[in-house]
Structures are given as structure tokens and as C-alpha cells.
């Protein structure tokens, strides 16, 4: 028995900010104090508050230390772990009120969250199967194999209202039903897991895989039993080395415990799971492309029908679900369809995990019931936009989604509402933008991404996105006309209607949604040749306020283009003559502005 457990986050965010060194320091300090048998150091998955990493929590008290540095450790060990005195100066300041330390669950960030898919992340050691079993792990698989028929399993998933968390929101139970019923020839079927989280700025799936890998394995086995498959594949990004390693460990442990392999729970049901590493192609998030890639080919999508439920991987019936979808399954089996359907809105049940990023105070991972408003997520949980800047838009759905303006902040988030306001749920990336972000530039950024990632198989996507990108580029350079805006919109609708797969069909969304809500910004670029946010370099001009300039010459020495020269003008009260920028020579790098100590240089 340990009297205290110290949980150190080992997710990618905290590992990047040095949580491994924290663990090492803790272990050596604890050994020095002779407390190895009293205090356990546990490496967990992601706690969600990545902006405050590395994170360390001391139980049973639940004290939340944030932004921990190795040099804090000796003090924390000698004061807190030896003498029982919390070292307040290193504790997350929001949990400190006067002399009291609040539990982490009562902070703004965690208060409104409800964790289903993330329930074990940051709680258990993901590299130890016994910790998963201790939190009801594999109980759902046991129940399914010993008490339920495959049809009953599918009925429960259907009744729960669970929809695919990868983006499109197709009912999971219906997918399973089709794969079970449409082909019944006794041949092999496959269960696949899409862990190729390619949406830039989204990291929900990675956190589940890093923090609770067994939840995915268990759900895949349940799915296998339901549709009659004995083989599963997890297609995971090679860029997620920690997730890959933890999955490998989890699969090995599940084998050792007889929870994967032959004759699971003595039921006669066999199931095995293989890992396949993706190689960095966004289109492989599309289901048919993912299967083509597992087969060892260029990951190009194929036309549907035939749907994967009839002809998928190796031409056999296959289901593909996203990591987060699987992470809900075991809970649904154990707690019942009604429990799950009791959360959320009419057509979107349960919870959704969002990766909150961009211009927001509490960057990190949040899980909220469907129907929570964007305002609650951004302002309450996320802590709002930092540095006193104004909120401009929230981007959801990544390169397939759109930008949501402030007037729609109170819309309850679910699949259908987001579609109605021109965005989409997507996998759950939620990027906040402030007044310093140019919406035309953001649309261009996403189009650059899709041009790069288009597989090239169909013309509307391969050529259409390229032309769209060129039009946006023209706008940001101040060379477009109003007629170009109409042409661009027309092209958007053409691509949406004609592209082969989801990537192309949704690629114009970032353009359409910004045109819809931020048309004035486009007009400013086209008509006034100005970028209101001051981002598009070609439209900027830098000027020196001659009365504020002290003539120190710092800017002129910084200027690589020799565009800054001294004038004859001496401002009142100054000894030296002021400088001026020759706009013909200026390359708009902004170096002068950041060196000026007197804030005499401005950009417009």
C-alpha cells in the first residue's frame, strides 16, 4: 500500500515540455528521502490542460501542480510529500483561494466537463492493463461474449444514438448492422480503427490512445463479435510515437491476459488486432482511402457504392470507426443505451471531445455533453481570448469545416447545428482566432493544405482546389476584382458537387464560410487593397511617425533591404533627425517595427 500517489502526465504535450525529467527527478528525490515504499510515481495519459504542462497531481489530496520544473521537485518532495505541506507557489493558481486549495474538478476548466471517452485519461497508467481492469476494463467485453447475442449488441449501440466521432456523424449501430447483415457468406470480415488523425490542430484521438489504449482494443473486440469479424486493424499516424508504443504494449498485455487471441473468455470467439502505421497522407482519413492504404497501395479513395460494409478491406465487408467512437462503446454496453442517450441533444447523443487551441487561454482537451454552447467552451472552459484581444471566429472541422463568427457563439453544438451554420463537427479540432487573424489568409492556409493533400485521383479536387488557392492568393496580394469573388464562389459549389471523396467535397468549406461571415474582409482586400488584420504582407505599408522617432537608427541598421534612411526633419525636443521608410524598397518583413523602442513605427 502506498500512502500517496504522484501522477505525472506523460501525454505528448507534457512530454514535450519535459515531464520525463520531472518523473526522473521525483523518483530520485523520493529515493533520497527513503520513501520508495510509501509514495508511488505514476505516469498517466493526458489531463487535458496542455497549456499548463508539465502537470503533476498528488493524491489522495488531489493537489494540482502546474508548469512544474525539475528544480521545484526537491522542495515539493521535502515539504509536501515528507511534511504534508502543500507548496502553494507551484500549485495551479486557480485552485488556490486564500488558505484553501480547491480540488481540480472545481476549476473553470474542469467544472463543466463530463468525461466518457476520456474517463481514464490522466487517471490510470496506460501501460498497465491491471489499472484498466480495475476501472471496469474488459467487463463490457465479458458481458457481451457471455450474456449477449451479436444482434443484442448492435441493438444497444443503435439505441444509444452513438454517431461517428470522426466527423461525418454516421450512426455507428447502423454501420455495424449493415456489416453484419449485408454479406453472410461465412468469409472473413474486418474491424478497422481510424487513428490517422490528420486534421491539423486536433489531438483527441492521440490522447485517448496515449491515455487509455485498452478502451479502443476492447471496443474493437466488441465490434468484431457484433459483425462476425476475427481480425482488427488500427491505422495510426506514425507521427504519434508515444501512442504507437502504448498500443503495442496494450496489445501484448491483452494477449497475455487472454483478452485478445483465441477463445476469449472461453466463449469460442477469436479476435486479434494488428497495427498499421500511416505515412502522413491526410486523405487516408477517408474510409476507402484508409483501406487502400492498409492494403499497401497509394492511399487513393474509391467510389462508393460498393460501401465498405459490403466490400471494404481486401474486398471483404469491413467497418471503420474512429478512436473516440470506440472509446464510448464499452461504457454504453456497461451503463446502457438509455444512460448514453440521456446526454446531448435530440439527434446528437453523448459527449464530444474538442481539442481547444489557437488564441485561447486554456489550450487543451475538453469533453462536454453535446449541446453545450460554443460560448461556454470558449469563454468559461477555455478562459477566453488572452491579451485583451477581441474574439473573431472559432474554426471547427479543420480543413473540411468553417469559421463560426461571434453572432453564432450561443448555438448549442451538435452535428446538425454546426452544418446549418456552414461548419461541421469534424473530428473535434476547435481553433480560436482573434482580431489579429485575417480570415482570407486562414482560408488560403486551409486551401494550401488541401492542394498539398489532394491525392490527385479526381479532377475537381486536384485542379479545382489549386485554382481556388490561386484566386485566394490573388486576393491576398490585392490583385483581385469583385468579379473574382463571384467566380470563386461558383467554383466552390462546383467542387463540392463533383469531387469523388469527402476531402474534395468539403475542401471549399473554409472559403464558403469565411465568404459568408467575413465578406467585408474580402471586400477590404479587393476594393480598398487593405488587410484589416494586418497579416497579408503585400497589402501592408510600414510608416514611421516622424514626431515619435528619436533618430536612434536602430531600425535602419535592422533593415535588410536598406529601405530606411534619415530625413532632414528634426522633431521638437530631439537632437537627431527622424527616419523614413522608402515603401518602394520595403520588403515588409516587420523587423524595424519589432526593434523600435519608441513605438514610432506602425503598419496598416
Amino acid at each position, binding site marked *: 500500500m502506498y500512502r500517496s500517489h504522484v501522477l505525472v502526465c506523460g501525454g*505528448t*504535450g507534457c512530454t*514535450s*515540455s519535459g515531464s520525463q525529467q520531472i518523473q526522473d527527478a521525483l523518483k530520485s528525490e523520493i529515493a533520497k528521502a527513503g520513501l520508495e515504499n510509501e509514495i508511488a510515481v505514476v505516469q498517466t495519459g493526458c489531463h487535458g*490542460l*496542455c*497549456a*499548463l*504542462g508539465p502537470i503533476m497531481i498528488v493524491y489522495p489530496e488531489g493537489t494540482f501542480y502546474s508548469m512544474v520544473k525539475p528544480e521545484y521537485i526537491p522542495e515539493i518532495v521535502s515539504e509536501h510529500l515528507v511534511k504534508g505541506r502543500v507548496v502553494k507557489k507551484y500549485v495551479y493558481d486557480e485552485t488556490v483561494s486564500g488558505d484553501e486549495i480547491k480540488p481540480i474538478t472545481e476549476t473553470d476548466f474542469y467544472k463543466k466537463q463530463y468525461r466518457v471517452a476520456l474517463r481514464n485519461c490522466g487517471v490510470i497508467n496506460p501501460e498497465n492493463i491491471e489499472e484498466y481492469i480495475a476501472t471496469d476494463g474488459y467487463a463490457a467485453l465479458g458481458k457481451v461474449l457471455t450474456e449477449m447475442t451479436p444482434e443484442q449488441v448492435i441493438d444497444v449501440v443503435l439505441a444509444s444514438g452513438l454517431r461517428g466521432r470522426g466527423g461525418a456523424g454516421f450512426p455507428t449501430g447502423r454501420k455495424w448492422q449493415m456489416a453484419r447483415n449485408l454479406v453472410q457468406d461465412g468469409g472473413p470480415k474486418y474491424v478497422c480503427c481510424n487513428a490517422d488523425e*490528420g*486534421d*491539423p*490542430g*486536433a*489531438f483527441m484521438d*492521440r490522447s485517448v490512445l496515449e491515455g487509455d489504449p485498452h478502451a479502443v482494443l476492447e471496443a474493437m473486440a466488441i465490434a468484431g463479435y457484433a459483425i462476425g469479424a476475427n481480425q482488427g486493424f488500427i491505422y495510426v499516424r*506514425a*507521427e*504519434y510515437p508515444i501512442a504507437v508504443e502504448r498500443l503495442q504494449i496494450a496489445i501484448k498485455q491483452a494477449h497475455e491476459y487472454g483478452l485478445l487471441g483465441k477463445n476469449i473468455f472461453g466463449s469460442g470467439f477469436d479476435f486479434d488486432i494488428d497495427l*498499421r*502505421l*500511416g*505515412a*502522413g*497522407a*491526410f486523405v487516408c482519413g477517408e474510409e476507402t482511402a484508409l483501406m487502400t*492504404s*492498409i*492494403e*499497401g*497501395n*497509394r*492511399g487513393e479513395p474509391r467510389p462508393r457504392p460498393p460501401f465498405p460494409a459490403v466490400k471494404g478491406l*481486401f474486398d471483404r465487408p469491413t467497418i471503420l470507426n474512429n478512436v473516440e467512437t470506440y472509446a464510448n462503446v464499452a461504457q454504453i454496453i456497461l451503463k446502457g443505451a438509455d444512460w448514453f442517450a440521456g446526454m446531448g441533444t435530440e439527434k446528437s447523443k453523448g459527449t464530444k471531445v474538442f*481539442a481547444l*487551441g*489557437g*488564441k485561447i487561454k486554456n*489550450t*487543451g482537451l475538453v469533453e462536454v455533453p453535446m449541446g453545450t454552447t460554443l460560448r461556454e467552451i470558449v469563454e468559461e472552459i477555455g478562459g477566453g481570448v488572452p491579451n485583451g484581444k477581441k474574439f473573431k471566429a472559432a*474554426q471547427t472541422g*479543420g480543413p473540411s469545416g468553417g469559421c463560426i463568427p461571434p453572432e453564432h457563439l450561443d448555438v448549442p453544438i451538435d452535428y446538425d447545428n454546426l452544418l446549418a451554420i456552414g461548419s461541421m463537427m469534424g473530428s473535434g*479540432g476547435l*481553433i480560436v*482566432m482573434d482580431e489579429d*487573424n485575417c480570415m482570407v489568409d*486562414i482560408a488560403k*492556409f*486551409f486551401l494550401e*493544405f488541401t492542394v498539398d493533400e489532394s*491525392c490527385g485521383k479526381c479532377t475537381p479536387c486536384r485542379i479545382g482546389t489549386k485554382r481556388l488557392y490561386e484566386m485566394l492568393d490573388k486576393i491576398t496580394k490585392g490583385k483581385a476584382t469583385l468579379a473574382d469573388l463571384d467566380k470563386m464562389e461558383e467554383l466552390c459549389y462546383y467542387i463540392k458537387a463533383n469531387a469523388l471523396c469527402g476531402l474534395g467535397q468539403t475542401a471549399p468549406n473554409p472559403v464558403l464560410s469565411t465568404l459568408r461571415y467575413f465578406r467585408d474582409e474580402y471586400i477590404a482586400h479587393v476594393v480598398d487593397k487593405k488587410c484589416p488584420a494586418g497579416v497579408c504582407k503585400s497589402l501592408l505599408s510600414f510608416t514611421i511617425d516622424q514626431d515619435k522617432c528619436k533618430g536612434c537608427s536602430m531600425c535602419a541598421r535592422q533593415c535588410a533591404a536598406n529601405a530606411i534612411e534619415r530625413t532632414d526633419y528634426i522633431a521638437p525636443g530631439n537632437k537627431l533627425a527622424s527616419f523614413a521608410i522608402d515603401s518602394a524598397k520595403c520588403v515588409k518583413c516587420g523587423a524595424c517595427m*519589432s526593434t523600435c523602442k519608441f513605438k514610432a513605427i506602425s503598419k496598416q
Partner: protein
Amino acid sequence: MSSKICSVPFKGTKEQEAQLKAIIDSLRDQRGCLMPIMQKAQGIYGYLPIEVQTFIADELNIPLEKVYGVATFYSQFSLYPKGEYKISVCLGTACYVKGSGDVYEKLMEKLGIAGGECTADGKFSLDACRCIGACGLAPVMTINDDVYGKLTVDKLDEILAKYN
């Protein structure tokens, strides 16, 4: 991907070839084995020069076009050698809205190479990547296994100096 022709001569050893052969033999019966083999081959050689692609194609008895097609489709596979220090700047959305685009441009200027290229002395190569998942630290770049977060253009000189 850079369009420059690779001028670095292939320097594969017999040991590397034997290692690759063993991997191919252990995987060849598995359906869809081509990508796992290529991933391991890149792990051995650091990149996938045409000599290695030819070897894989011959061993698996499939056309070289197929191997080349897969190698050029996925951004993880590189036909060119990488630098001793691989710099990767995250251009995911969260990093981009916080200014990683400026960081990437500044690095090109400082190193005198375009994205996807390697400096003449073989020391640094520069690539853009899509989200390494450390969005809480945006903007982020990695140099080999070291992660640098909350970057600004001003911090670059100090960081690069560590590797010079």
C-alpha cells in the same frame, strides 16, 4: 516535396542490405506488407533512394513503379537524405494562427534553403509538418527529438546556435 534531383551518391552497406532482406523475409507473406517494409527500410537508410526501392521491388517481385508510387504519395517517405539535424516546423492550424508561418519563413532565410531541402554541409534539413499534437505549446518546432515550444522568430538564433 523538393523537385531537385538528388546528387548525393548512395552509400548503403552490405550490413544494411542484409538487415533489409531479413525484414522483407519476415513480412513478405503478410497482406499489404509493402508500406511496413518501406517504413523499416527508411529507418535503416534514413531515406529511400532509388537503389533501395529497386531492391524492395525485386525482392517482392512487384514493379518498381508501384514502390515509387507509394514512396512519392506519402509525405513520410523521403527520396533524399536528411540533414544531421532535422528541423520540422509545425504548420498545423493551432500553430499557424500563432505565427508558425513566420518562424518557417525565417528559418528558410537563416539556413538559405527551401522547405524539404538540406543545407550544403548536410547539417540541417528543414521541413514543415502537420501537427505533432503539442498544440498547448504552439507554435512548435522539433529538431530531431527535441521539441521547442512557444516560439518566436527572435528565439531562433539562440536555438540554432546549440547545434552549430
